[in-house]
């Protein structure tokens, strides 16, 4: 039994791609459970669901990267079995992944050529590439090396590469995760054009406003199963969210009237050259975070956030000691552990490999940030019971689900590991907490727990700095929000005056304050 898309029924058209009862198992875990989906030409179809619902798995089945355990695919009425992506491409299915398959040290043209079948000459590909890019308003220089390009430009390579194969169906996996709101608008124009050419588009997202704006139909997945197919314009964001999550997740309670006290973290005119030659130069970054408030830093990744985090944590030292001041003490030239001893705590973006050592136990990972200032080390010797106690406290306080008392970090799911990492730091009752991408790739329940924990921490007088690509998150929890662009930090906007549009413009490089002209704004997003 499967739902026929409302659009399809009314047009009476045959579905271009039909997924029938797709099931995919990993051990005992059901990533996809009997999913039916129909895709029609000239239609933008959304695939909605929170992190972990099975969206990526389903589209990988459609693209031939994964074989389903049960179920079948039908293309234009014929049953197909895809041995690999090249067969999918040959049929006319194109895909733009969330994580790009690019080669940094090769040129744009070389990257595109590698994604196409070797039937054309290299020069022909370069010419067609420039032509296609121009045609769709996605300018690209074939000779440029990829490492020089911004994230948005890199996505263009992926899109143009897919378009050059003249796809009948184009699948996009969370394309706007790395774009500013204005760049996203541009993308929607391109997608509208493709729809007008009669192509089918499958658009994966968890951003409800986007889906309502852009998509004709939406299929919602939850826990591996298809929950519903609907017309997004006829739904509200709340009803879509309820279908995605299955229950009303309690709205995060912002503590009203928090006592905001003295500046506990001050960044003063911080300028820093990047470690990595492909990195971003920090340019006179200045910011104050007071005790009791949450300050957000928005911005598309790649604009200096990593470099700023490293400078704040002490993984990189600043040129002057006064560039970073923690609770009144100049900390710019102090190392990570000295800053921890001063009461600062940090949560980096990358859970596995940076925030934790994946193949080490949780107790050792507790030791990772705790050895400097949390009583786990006595005269050079490790107190194992103290580290285990820290694990127990984090588990209890932050609802960390795990298979045994002290497993390897890599065995926890994304959400649970993130809860452990955030809990590990919050339990130290820091005076200053700096956290990067707190809920990236985390399920809604864990995300809510983490955000509430941050708010509660601020309520106890801590200065909290949150760097996030998720505008919704910042709009939800931040008292003030600034934007990072090309290594510069804008002046913060208060919760009262901040809007998605203003943040979007800043993320695209407009100057603070004034409304930019149309030309300025479009130039800033690289049109």
């Amino acid at each position, binding site marked *: 039994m499967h739902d026929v898309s409302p659009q399809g029924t009314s047009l009476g058209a045959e579905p271009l791609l039909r997924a029938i009862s797709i099931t995919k198992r990993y051990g005992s875990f059901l990533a996809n459970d009997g999913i039916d989906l129909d895709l029609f030409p000239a239609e933008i179809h959304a695939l909605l669901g929170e992190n972990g619902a099975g969206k990526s798995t389903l589209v990988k089945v459609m693209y031939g990267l994964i074989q389903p355990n049960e179920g079948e695919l039908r293309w234009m009425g014929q049953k197909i079995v895809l041995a690999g992506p*090249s067969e999918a491409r040959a049929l006319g299915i194109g895909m733009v992944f969330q994580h790009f398959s690019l080669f940094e*040290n*090769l040129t744009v043209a070389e990257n595109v050529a590698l994604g196409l079948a070797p039937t054309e000459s290299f020069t022909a590909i370069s010419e067609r590439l420039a032509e296609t890019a121009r045609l769709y308003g996605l300018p690209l220089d074939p000779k440029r090396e990829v490492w020089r390009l911004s994230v948005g430009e890199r996505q263009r390579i992926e899109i143009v590469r897919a378009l050059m194969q003249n796809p009948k169906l184009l699948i996009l996996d969370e394309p706007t995760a790395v774009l500013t709101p204005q760049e996203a608008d541009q993308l929607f124009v391109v997608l509208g054009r493709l729809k007008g050419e009669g192509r089918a588009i499958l658009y994966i997202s968890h951003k409800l406003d986007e889906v309502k704006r852009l998509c004709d139909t939406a299929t919602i997945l939850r826990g591996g199963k298809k929950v519903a197919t609907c017309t997004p314009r006829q739904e509200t964001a709340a009803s879509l969210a309820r279908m995605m999550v299955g229950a009303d997740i309690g709205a995060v309670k912002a503590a009203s009237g928090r006592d905001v006290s003295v500046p506990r973290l001050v960044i003063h005119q911080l300028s820093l050259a990047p470690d990595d030659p492909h990195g971003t130069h920090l340019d006179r970054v200045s910011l104050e975070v007071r005790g009791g408030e949450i300050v957000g830093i928005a911005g598309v990744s790649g604009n200096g956030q990593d470099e700023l985090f490293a400078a704040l944590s002490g993984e990189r030292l600043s040129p002057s000691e006064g560039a970073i001041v923690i609770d009144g003490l100049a900390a710019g030239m102090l190392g990570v552990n000295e800053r921890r001893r001063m009461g600062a705590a940090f949560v980096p973006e990358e859970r596995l490999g940076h925030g934790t050592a994946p193949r080490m136990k949780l107790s050792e990972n507790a030791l990772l940030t705790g050895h400097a200032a949390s009583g786990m080390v006595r005269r050079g010797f490790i107190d194992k019971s103290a580290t285990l106690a820290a694990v127990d406290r984090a588990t209890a306080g932050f609802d960390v689900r795990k298979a045994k008392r002290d497993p390897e970090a890599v065995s926890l799911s994304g959400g649970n590991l993130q809860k452990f990492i955030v809990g590990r730091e919050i339990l130290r009752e820091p005076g200053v907490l700096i956290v990067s991408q707190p809920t990236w790739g985390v399920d809604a329940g864990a995300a809510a727990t983490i955000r509430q924990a941050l708010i509660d921490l601020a309520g106890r007088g801590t200065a909290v700095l949150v760097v996030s690509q998720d505008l919704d998150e910042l709009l939800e929890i931040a008292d003030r929000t600034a934007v990072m662009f090309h290594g510069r930090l804008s002046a913060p906007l208060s919760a009262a005056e901040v809007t998605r549009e203003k943040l979007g413009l800043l993320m695209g490089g407009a100057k603070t304050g004034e409304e930019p002209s149309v030309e300025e704004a479009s130039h800033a997003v690289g049109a």
Partner: protein
Amino acid sequence: MLMFEAIMLSVIAASTPLLLAAAGELVAERSGVLNLGLEGMMIMGAACAFAGTYVSDSIVVGALCGVLAGVAMSAIFAIFTLGLAVNQVASGLALTILGTGLSGLIGAGFVGQRISTAPQLHLPVLTDLPLVGRILFGQDAFVYLSVALVIGIWLFLYRSRAGLVLRAVGDNHTSAHALGYPVLKIRALAVLFGGGCAGLAGAFLPLAYTPFFIPGMTAGRGWIALALVVFASWRPGRLVAGAYLFGAVSILQLHAQALGLGIPSQLMSSLPYLATVIVLVLISRTRGIAGSAAPASLGVVFVPDR
């Protein structure tokens, strides 16, 4: 005049095995595999080449035996590092130890025996030219092969589709895999090619350099060849320059002794190795600002998520 000719000839002879071995390793490393077993593959190539020529009285058969020995050794390496995801550094060391031991076993019966060396080219007018005649037109096949090999590798890497794919695999094996390229198969082929070149380089020693087999006759050339690849920033053109530079340094000691300078022979013998250290330091330092030129996935274990 004769002095210059003699020096140049000895430089070419010293540089050729380095160039052959380094060229093959360059291809393997461009695909992302670090094969530290060069020394082991080379010495096996030497032993098998000598044995082959001794038994068949043919240089060509001997060279082929050397190449096959190199391929076989690198196949062992490929099975472990690519098939079983074993650490590449440790495997390379194991290969060197194994090769050194095996070559001793094979060569044991041949120590003290002598074979005829590879014939050198003789073109009617050209070879007899003064000064450059023998240098350019009077070499043995190995020398010309080494130059052809480098040119061939350059064309392959930069002017062919297969070479582009290889470079891509070395740059980002995750992306290459996502695009559907058989990463492990490509790397295996690159490793086997590198093994063949190393075997050929080893074969040069008893077939063209000295007509004997001496245990350990590679004397660290395999390690120097590895340093050469770093020195060349993984680019074939610079490899030639580097190989000839090192070749020159390594025969310096012979000529210094001939000149009767009072420098201890051991100091002169250690010059190539000291020079390698110095060159590595210099080349890594100058690159620091520009970032490493090494293939980004060099030495990183790849186990595809399927």
